[in-house]
């Protein structure tokens, strides 16, 4: 495994670990783990003391706040770690939708062909013909309450057509391979061939595609957040952190830089790991 892929994997592991840790902190452990509350304004009113906190907005890096604070004196490091959770969930849901629904659909039409293929692929082409972000904005704006479930579901549904295309292309190729012809020749039922021969061989390609598609999904979610159309405030996402920090960019560029870096490095890492797996699955496919 090349060094760059090792670094990329390490980064992705940290993001995933951080996101799960953050979720456990706010959920199971009720804020008792050593991570600051991402929504707590350190200069806000403290009910216990009856006074306002002494935190400073747009603070630089310090021991108390490793990456400084944002415009309302919240800990930036905690918000970046928590922001990873939104990206993680959206990626997982979109990949799940894509691989399961898109993968099955593409494998089926690539194997069965005929009118079913014509109808389904025409529908997929129509959906893909719309600019993805525009369609996404239109769908998201329908929902009055935009929580993580809604955002993930919408992005997940819109991921299906692309996965369907990839799965169909692979299914077409696999369906004409010798082992599929042999299975047909010995009278194996088509459904069994699909489940035993086609889908298992489509999956490696589809999973490696999912890694690359995940990078795109992270960017899409970031764009929605930046536009204020992703999960609602005060939930931290990298996109809304960039949006909120841009006002103070002349005072403290780091507050824009940190979430931007988190987003960029994650996208880069997903691409690196995705490319690596794609190469691996291509090699494996050619040896079938």
């Amino acid at each position, binding site marked *: 495994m090349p060094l760059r892929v090792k670094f990329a994997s390490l980064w992705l592991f940290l993001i995933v670990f951080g996101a799960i840790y953050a979720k456990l902190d706010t959920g199971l452990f009720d804020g008792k783990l050593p991570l600051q509350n991402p929504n707590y304004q350190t200069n806000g009113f403290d009910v216990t003391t009856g006074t306002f906190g002494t935190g400073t907005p747009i603070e630089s890096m310090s021991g108390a706040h490793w990456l400084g604070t944002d415009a309302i004196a919240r800990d930036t490091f905690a918000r970046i770690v928590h922001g990873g959770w939104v990206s993680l969930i959206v990626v997982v849901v979109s990949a799940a939708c894509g691989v399961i629904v898109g993968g099955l659909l593409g494998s089926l039409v690539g194997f069965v062909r005929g009118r079913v293929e014509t109808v389904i692929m025409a529908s997929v082409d129509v959906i893909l013909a719309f600019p993805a972000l525009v369609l996404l904005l239109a769908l998201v704006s329908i929902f009055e309450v935009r929580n993580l479930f809604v955002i993930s579901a919408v992005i997940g549904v819109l991921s299906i057509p692309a996965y369907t295309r990839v799965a169909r292309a692979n299914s077409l190729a696999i369906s004409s391979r010798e082992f599929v012809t042999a299975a047909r020749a010995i009278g194996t039922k088509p459904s069994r061939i699909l489940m035993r021969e086609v889908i298992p061989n489509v999956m490696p390609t589809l999973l490696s595609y999912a890694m690359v598609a995940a990078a795109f999904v992270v960017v899409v979610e970031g764009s929605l957040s930046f536009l204020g159309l992703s999960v*609602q405030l005060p939930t931290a996402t990298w996109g809304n952190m960039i949006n909120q920090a841009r006002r103070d960019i002349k005072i403290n560029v780091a507050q824009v830089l940190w979430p931007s870096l988190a987003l960029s490095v994650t996208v880069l890492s997903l691409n690196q790991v995705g490319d690596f797996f794609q190469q691996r699955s291509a090699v494996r496919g050619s040896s079938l």
Partner: protein
Amino acid sequence: MGVSAMRRKGLHRAIAFLAAAGLIASACGGGGDSTSEPADSPAEETTSEPAEEPAAEEPAVEAGDEAEGDVDTEVVEDDTVQVSYGGSISVGLEAEVTGLRPWEDNCSSPCYNMMVAVYDKLVEQDVTGAYAPYLAESFSSNDDYTVWTVTLRSGVTFHNGVALTAQSIVDMFPIQQAGAASAGVVASSGLTSVEATGDLEVTYTLSAPKAIFPSYLARAPLGMVFEAGAAAADPDGFSMAPVGTGPFVIESRDLDNKTVFVRNADYWGSDPDGNQLPYLDSISFLPIPDEGTRLDALLSGTVDAMQTLRQGTIRDARDARDGGAAIELLESQGNNVGGGMFNMAIAPFDDLRVRQGLISLNSQEQVIEALGGTGISLPGTQWFSADSPWWSQKVAEAWPKFNFDAGVEKLNEYINDAARSDGKAVGESIDVELSCPPDPTLIAAMQVLQQTLEATELVNVTMTNYDQQTHINNALGMDNGFQGVHSMHCWRWSSEDDPTAGILAFLSEPTNFPNWTGEYADEAKALAAESGATDDFATRKALFEEIMMIIVDQLPIWYSGHTATAIGTSPAVHGLNGWHVPSGDLGIGFPSAEGRWSEVFISG
């Protein structure tokens, strides 16, 4: 369409316009303001001379001047540099001006910057805030303020060569009666007819006494003079090729890019020394919506001037200037004040205890800090900034200050009331939808409010951000009898215009205006109507104070800070501060980041 239906439509337009004009926009956005409503200050006297704003010896006037935290740039004569003719400047505006028709296109701060280049107003405000003749040579009224006579300057021509006469003003009136921006203003002014009673004498007849009528002649819808013949011939084309009597003539207009005006060689105006205006050969306006980019454009010399209505930008501009950047800032702390409103037509905001509780939990200093306005924007307590002659110490002291315990107590009273209006069980938290346009500064301020409200454990806050038009429509409630679908809603209040019209609109009947219900309305509305029927400063100030005290009692709205605005310029640009009305007195300056360009010149 029947007459009543047309009137209703005009009223709806006026409401929409007023609502839009009052909104946050931008930092609040953006806001701008500007208003459909008549301008400022005390009413005119029945003479041809500018009405005296409050007399200098009146202590009430001085109260505002002495208030703490004055952050304005003083309006003074800019006589340090010799004026010179020639040259061109470019001005960065916060938004493109969609149309340049005073009767049709709602005008906010960027729009006024552009419109005053091409149109003259009949009346302007001088440095005291009083109304002074501008394109009008004089104005006066009868004893009961129902008939106003305006005498125009002689020898003035429009940019297309047509002479300005009384008939020009008369011909404008039918267009103004039907215009999207002016129809509501015509209605609210009570203007029933405009007649030419001489070559240059125009008589305005009102349906009711209106001592503040000249203020209507100082704003775009009724006050900006356009060539009615050209407007009637091609109303749509007029938006791109306006014809006025102003100091500059339009040369080219490329929407969303650049609008260029060149010197009007036949302009009637002159400076106090008798030099013909304007000084500049041309002026260009460039819409640069992004605040940071607009400031950078000034710092890099891409533009020679820029306007802003955002505290954060003023802060950055101050930092740049203090760091050695060669720019100058003309700052103004306007009457316009940010904050929001409660929809008193719905529970639980129909209950005074809830409003009292929520406002007691509004820490203005923290909200202003989140808005980026610390040291720039002063906390609001009323519709007037501390610099306004209408400002009241009594109201400032009476406005509820942040008090967590008091807020909790009031909310508890409501929550534990078996007859609570929201139908929830005793002890259940109240639900609040806090909504602002999706501006980063507003979002930050919302989250400050949210944390404090939720710290009580008595309030469930849902934050929503809709685009500005949706935000306005939610409050407007065109589909539900003007009740609106909002609850705790970011908004802006007041302007530099005369307070009466704005207050009257604010206090309209619940079925006509979305946000305001309650027993206070009738009493306050009567006071507002009374304020429009007298030109006595002390009387009016007392009436406004009484209205503001009713607002303090009923708390339909809350405040954050006053809107600081600024025009930044290159040091070579002069004349924005210290322009004059024709009498030779100083003009009002640059409120709401609205510049006047006829006396601007370039040094060196």
